[in-house]
């Protein structure tokens, strides 16, 4: 099946209602839309966070996201996918990331949204630098995020 894909890496905020409306517009085939949004929280790894700077590798970012989305499309029947990731200076409670997936049935949509987020956290070239009372600190990658992709296995080895 052909999947309609939209990927954006941007400084600007996004409106979840608008994104959801785009997933529904002229859509008569899908029975399920699942979306995830990630926010800047005030406490991370035991530190009081006042802001966040997101660096990325511009030439690679959209390509890496496209590869993750393409992988999801080989595993589940998906009809629409929208991924937005912000870069630059963010503040507490700002939106960072949005992933929406639609499908005929909920199971594929739930699972694919989870899959895309797990791989985004491990393979898309973004780095967070927190502004805290103790100064600016690069966020460490977490072991639990690295382990999160193990559960998906390697499809080529199935």
């Amino acid at each position, binding site marked *: 099946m052909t999947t309609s894909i939209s990927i954006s890496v941007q400084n600007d905020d996004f409106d979840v209602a608008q994104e959801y409306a785009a997933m529904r517009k002229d859509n008569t085939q899908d029975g399920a839309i699942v979306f995830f949004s990630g926010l800047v929280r005030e406490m991370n790894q035991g530190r009081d966070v006042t802001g966040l700077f997101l660096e990325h*590798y511009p030439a*690679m970012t959209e390509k890496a996201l496209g590869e993750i989305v393409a992988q999801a499309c080989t595993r589940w029947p998906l009809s629409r996918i929208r991924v937005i990731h912000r870069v630059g200076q963010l503040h507490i409670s700002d939106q960072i990331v949005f992933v929406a997936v639609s499908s005929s049935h909920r199971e594929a949509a739930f699972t694919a949204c989870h899959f895309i987020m797990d791989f985004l956290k491990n393979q898309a070239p*973004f*780095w967070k630098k927190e502004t805290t009372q103790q100064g600016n600190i*690069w966020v460490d990658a977490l072991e639990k995020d690295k382990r999160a992709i193990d559960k998906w296995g390697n499809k080529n080895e199935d």
Partner: protein
Amino acid sequence: MIKVLFFAQLREQLNSQGLELTLATPCDINAIKHALIEHNSQWHAHLSQDTILCAVNQTMVDNRHLVQDGDEVAFFPPVTGG
């Protein structure tokens, strides 16, 4: 000529956004790291961290990947987006 880029805390640790290397190709990622350490011996500890990731032409690769003349090679720490 190989274009080398550094990102995030690695860029800060090396105090460099990147540089251009002239090397006999094909060569693997380890050979590129050695050439970078020859260029600046203070980079040794940072480039030897086993957590450092590498992308060639914007795709992640392992240390055995063979780099060709004209490739873009990026080194960076584990990613923390999302």
